[in-house]
Each structure stands twice: as structure tokens, then as C-alpha cells.
């Protein structure tokens, strides 16, 4: 029996149970349109969490994702104000490149200077936010300054679901393929699972971590545009503290902080769990102020669960014990 599969099943069960419980009192919660709304609302978290997952798998952590999102989003908004006619597609490409570049800064510091990832991203987190202020002088960019196409794109409906939701699905599919079917994906698991052995098999650990940060940055940049456009406002503190929700989604999704273990599907479920909680609370008339405590408790339960399933078995020397296993 593979524990990981069962773990995803448990998480899926928990989400289903949660939805069902809410539905018993408020059937309106489970109508397709609302479920789609919940999914769309959770999409930015899902995209960021997948990027974070890649980084955590390589035994690193990226605390700068929300600041990267805010900075890239702000720059996109400024470009839009300056050049309202620039096609959205170009802007999205720009957002991904810029986000990737910011992520690459983290990656380079970790790879070339061996600075612990938590220190690097703690630093870049504050720097990115500060840079937004330098760019804007603390001023907001509001909906009326943005072009209609800029704000409409993530909200445009395609087959009954906003583009934002589709992008999350697309990112998930691409990343499932990258993680399972590319050399890089396998290297990411190998580096986190057993860095020593990874070196033996000819994998460059630092370079793999660098690429993980770049991927995380790229997805943060993409989310930056989507976020700003969806809420039609850009300011310094946007998505403040969101990096912790992102890490929480990963931990709940079964990504081991020790690296090497976890899946894209688990991460998505972890993000969805948080998303469902957030959206269900107002429906069942529980104050939204409960949300923070609930996600905190969920993280602790999830990490305790991770540790239980991942407990290392001792060395088996007695032959009888080996057969009993």
C-alpha cells in the first residue's frame, strides 16, 4: 500500500466531507456555479503552491513568493497604464519572465553563495516589497486607470469557468508532466530525497535548486498579473502574508518539509482544502475570523500526520523480523 496515495485520498475525503457538511445546511454551496467560484477563488493559491512545492521538494523554502507576486503585478499594472494597447498575451509573458528573473535571484544566491534559502527569501521578500514602494511612492493603481482588457482577462468566462480557473488547471497539468516526465522533475525529487545519492547519479544539486526557485518565481509572476487584474487594484501590501498560506497549502497537501516527498495533486488538494474552508465559513455563518486559526490547526495536524507516515524504520538485522515486516 502506498501511503502517499492514501494520504491524498484522506485529504480528498476531508474536503468532500467538509463540502457535504456545509451542503446539509446550505445546499446552495454545492451548486456547480458556486463550486466553480470556490475553485476560481482558490486558483492563485493553487498556482503559487505548486511553485512552492517544487522549491520545498529540493529541501529549500521560498518566502518571497507573495512579494514577487506583488512586485510583478504592480509592474504589469504600470505597464498597462503606460501602454494600454499592449496585448494581454505579451503582458502575461512579461509577467512570467519577470517573476522567473526574481526567482532566479533567490536561486543564484542559494546556488552560488550557499546562503540558506530561508535567509535569502526573507531578505528578498522585504526588498521586493520595498521596491514596489520606490516605484510607486506608495500610490495605488485603481481599476479606472487599468484598461478594460487588462482587468477582463482573468474574469472572462470560458465554458462556464473564468479564465483564472483554467489557467490553474493548465499550470497543474503542465507541472504534473514536468514533475513526472522530465529529467528536471526527477532530479528535483532526487535532490530532495537523497542529495548524496543525487551527486552519485550525476545530478547538480545547486543547479536543480536554482531551477526550482526560477519555476516558483515564474508562477509567482504569472499569479501577480492575474491577481492584480482580478481585483483591479495594485498597491504595496497586496497579498501580504500570503506566502504563509502557500506554505500551509503545501504542508497540508503532504509535501515533506524535509524534501523529496509530495505530489502536485496533493498540493492542489491542500490548497483546495484551505480554499473551501475560507469560502464555507461565511456561508455557515461562522465568523471569517476563524479562518486563520483553522488553517493553523490544519497545518499542525497535517505535519504531525506527515511525520507519522514517514517515520523511519530501524535497521532490520534479525531475519525473523524481516519476514514479519
Amino acid at each position, binding site marked *: 500500500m502506498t501511503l502517499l496515495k492514501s494520504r491524498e485520498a484522506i485529504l480528498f475525503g476531508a474536503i468532500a466531507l467538509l463540502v457535504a457538511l456545509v451542503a446539509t445546511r446550505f445546499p446552495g454551496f454545492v451548486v456547480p456555479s458556486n463550486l466553480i467560484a470556490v475553485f476560481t477563488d482558490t486558483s492563485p493559491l493553487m498556482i503559487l503552491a505548486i511553485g512552492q512545492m517544487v522549491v520545498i521538494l529540493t529541501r529549500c523554502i521560498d518566502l518571497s513568493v507573495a512579494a514577487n507576486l506583488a512586485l510583478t503585478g504592480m509592474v504589469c499594472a504600470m505597464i498597462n497604464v503606460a501602454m494600454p494597447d499592449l496585448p494581454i498575451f505579451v503582458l502575461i509573458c512579461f509577467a512570467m519572465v519577470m517573476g522567473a528573473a526574481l526567482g532566479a535571484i533567490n536561486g543564484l544566491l542559494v546556488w552560488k553563495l550557499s*546562503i540558506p534559502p530561508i535567509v535569502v527569501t526573507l531578505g528578498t521578500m*522585504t526588498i521586493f516589497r520595498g521596491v514596489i*514602494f520606490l516605484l510607486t511612492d506608495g500610490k495605488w493603481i485603481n481599476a479606472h486607470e487599468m484598461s478594460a482588457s487588462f482587468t477582463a482577462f482573468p474574469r472572462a468566462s470560458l465554458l462556464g469557468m473564468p479564465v483564472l480557473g483554467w489557467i490553474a488547471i493548465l499550470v497543474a497539468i503542465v507541472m504534473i508532466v514536468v514533475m513526472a516526465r522530465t529529467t528536471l522533475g526527477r532530479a528535483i525529487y532526487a535532490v530532495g530525497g537523497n542529495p548524496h545519492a543525487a551527486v552519485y547519479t550525476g545530478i547538480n544539486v545547486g543547479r536543480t535548486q536554482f531551477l526550482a526557485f526560477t519555476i516558483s518565481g515564474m508562477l509567482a509572476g504569472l499569479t501577480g498579473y492575474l491577481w492584480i487584474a482580478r481585483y483591479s487594484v495594485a498597491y504595496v501590501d497586496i497579498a501580504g502574508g500570503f506566502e504563509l498560506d502557500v506554505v*500551509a497549502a503545501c504542508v497540508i497537501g503532504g509535501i515533506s518539509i524535509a524534501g523529496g516527498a509530495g505530489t502536485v495533486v496533493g498540493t492542489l488538494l491542500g490548497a483546495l482544502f484551505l480554499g473551501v474552508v475560507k469560502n464555507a465559513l461565511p456561508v455557515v455563518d461562522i465568523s471569517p475570523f*476563524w479562518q*486563520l486559526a483553522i488553517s493553523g490547526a490544519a497545518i499542525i495536524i497535517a505535519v504531525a500526520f506527515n511525520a507519522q507516515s514517514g517515520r523511519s524504520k530501524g535497521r532490520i538485522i534479525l531475519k525473523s523480523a524481516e519476514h514479519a515486516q
Partner: protein
Amino acid sequence: MSMSQTTPRHIPDRLRSPMQARLMSWESLLLAVAVGIFILNTLASPYFLDAWNLSDATFNFTEKAMIAFAMALLIIAGEIDLSVASIIALASTAMGVAMEMGAGTPVLVLVGLATGMLCGAFNGALVTKLGLPSIVVTIGTMSLFRGLSYIILGDGAFRGYPADFAWFGQGYVFWVISVEFVIFALLAVVFGLLLHKTSFGRTVYAVGNNPTGALFSGIRVDRVKMILFLLTGLMSGLAAVCLTSRLGSTRPSIASGMELEVVTMVVLGGVNILGGSGSIPGVVIAAFVMGLVTFGLGLLNVPGIVMSIFIGLLLIGVIALPRLWSMWRKKRV
């Protein structure tokens, strides 16, 4: 006949004197930075060298530094507590509840400290009893503790603390020397002695350098870690008392983001984020550096968010520059 008896060769205690070692240390570098910033500030603003202004400036770091002292020990021992700011929120909320129930100042202080200890015990138990990684545990409790505070307070606030409660955050012991500054200075001495002069301090280094080796050497590793989590909780409770007293009110968003500033202060102070090394004098100087930067830029009307760029650059720069320097030297050779 045995080698060990015939040739007892003398090994000196030390090669370099402690003085020499001190001159080459991280702390001296940091002190030079602090002095530099001080001079720059003096040149940049005529208001800088004012006793009351400088006194006000200390509030920028005293509360954070209280926590940073305990955090330094925790990080040296190879763990971390990211929930400290949330502990402040919960402790402050608990004090607010006690105040509403009519508690006087001594009880309020006790409630604050006890709540901090309880939170630290909770973190410590999860880490040592269940063997969970502290970084994730405390990201969880960070949400949990502040979440509890939000549940109790919502978007409301506690106001109306007793008048004598204000002493902790607004009182002065002597002339411009604030109560908070005195607490900070006393704690600096206490933690300095604890880490550098006691056998407990020695075990903290051993645990951080090599937990397995420490365990094999008969050190109760889990107990050391538990004590450090309790201490960090206690200091967060104390910071909550000071901050609440200074602000005169409690909101659930109190001290938000402070955990990162505390960690920054510790790392800037030369504590290795991976554990095993660091010193309290380093953290003290780092506290002054951060306070001076914030205050100096504030006098120049630079907004807080931009100051954070300097803090961020400082954090990465102080670690990156020595490494770049040694890489550059290696290339030349």
C-alpha cells in the same frame, strides 16, 4: 614503557589570545557598521544627536531584541520559532480579556507572561515530543495563535488598560532611560551570561552543532530544546506586556510581521541560521544597527517600507559579501 607515559607533549590552551579572536570577529565588523551608520546619521540630520530622539529610537528595537535574545539561543540549538509575533498577539489578547475582567497590573503582567510560556510549551511539545520540524510547526502555530486572537477580538480592540500598566512601555527609569531599555539591557546581560558562561549555554552550542553527538555525549537534547522554546515564549510574553503597555490597546493584528524582523536581527547578529554558532553581543549590536537604520531614515522622512529594503539588503549582504570576497580571493590564487 607506554607511549602515553614517556612523551607527554605539551599542548597550549590557545594559539590566539581571546582579544585577538575578538578583533577578527563578526561582532567587530558589525560594530564598525553600527558606528558608520551612527556617523552617517549624525551628518545627515541635525536632529539625530538629541538625547530624547535617541531615546525614542530605542523603542524601534527593544521589544524585538527581547525576543531575539531567546530566539538566538533557539536558532543556535538548530530550531526556530516563527510564531513569536503571534504569541504577542495572543498574550496581548489574554491580557485584554483579563483587564475586562477587572485584573490589575500585576495580574495582567502575569497573564501575559504565562500565556507566552504556554504557547512556547505548545511549540516545544510538538517539536520534542512528536519530533516535528520546528519551521513548519511554528508556521502552523503562527496562524493558530493569531487566529485565536482574531476569534476573541474580531475586528474589535481592547482599550482602557490601567494607568499604572503604562509604566512598562511608556515609563522612564531615569532621565531619557526608558523602562523598556533597562529591561533590554538587563536581558542582554542575562542571556549573554546564560549562553556564554554557563554549562547550559555550552549544551546549546553542542546540540546545534551536532544533535546526535550531543545525545551520545549524555545531553538531554529534547529537554534543552523544550527549555529554549519556553524561554522564547516567555520573552514573547514579556514583549507583549511592553508593546501592549506602549500602545495602550490590543488589536489582533498587533506586532504582525515582527517574527521576520526578529529572525533578521538574529541572523544579522551573526547567528548561523543552520545552528551551532552565534553570540549575544552580536545580537545586541544587530539590534542597534537595525534601530539606527530605521531611526536615521525616519528622520530623513524615508518611509518604513523603504527602510525594509535596507534591512533586507543588509541581511543578504552581510552573509553574501564575505562569501563573495573569499570566492574572489580563491580565484586570484
